[in-house]
């Protein structure tokens, strides 16, 4: 049972464009939704996270949009840069300290 579904699997965006990655979850008990960024050979690193009491959270060029009724959340990367090229994972858990359920990841390539 896949608790968090992520799309697209891969994404190519031109420098300066907007990258959008979508996730959907099934378990209504989830209340913590982080996004992780992973570069090759490295562990996942927290990028930004949201709780369901807000519909949007912005940190610099990164924004999470959250739709509780649809059980969906998405990551928007504004003004995408080649340095943003990485794999992005959405995740969900019952609490920030509980086991994270990861999506399958999106490989983002930002072309110069």
């Amino acid at each position, binding site marked *: 049972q896949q608790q968090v579904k992520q799309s697209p699997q891969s994404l190519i965006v031109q420098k300066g464009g907007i990258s959008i990655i979508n996730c959907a979850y099934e378990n209504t008990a989830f209340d913590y939704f*982080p996004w992780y960024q992973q570069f090759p050979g490295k562990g996942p690193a927290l990028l930004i996270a949201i709780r369901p009491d807000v519909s949007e959270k912005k940190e610099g060029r990164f924004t999470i949009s959250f739709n509780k009724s649809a059980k969906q959340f998405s990551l928007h990367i504004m003004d995408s840069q080649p340095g943003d090229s990485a794999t992005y994972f959405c995740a969900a858990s019952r609490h920030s*300290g509980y086991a994270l359920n990861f999506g399958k990841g999106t490989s983002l390539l930002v072309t110069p």
Partner: protein
Amino acid sequence: EPEVTQTPSHQVTQMGQEVILRCVPISNHLYFYWYRQILGQKVEFLVSFYNNEISEKSEIFDDQFSVERPDGSNFTLKIRSTKLEDSAMYFCASVAGTNTGELFFGEGSRLTVL
């Protein structure tokens, strides 16, 4: 900046052998985790550990796996009799508390079972 450190970075072993992967979580963190990532696939939760006992485990974490905090700094994952399908990157992670947000991951230990 504090970090989670893992050793070894890469281990090659024969099927059926025992493997111990080691982790040093961030010093003031209280919750510890092991996740694994099979090449090209998603990160999967294995086990969480708090107050010297397992607090949660996944279906993957069967009797072949065990965890231990043998002293005040190390956190280990043991695989008793490795199988080919255990080949993966194993990530250790820690968090200060259940309501403090960021889970910090180590750089991983790549296990190759031949």
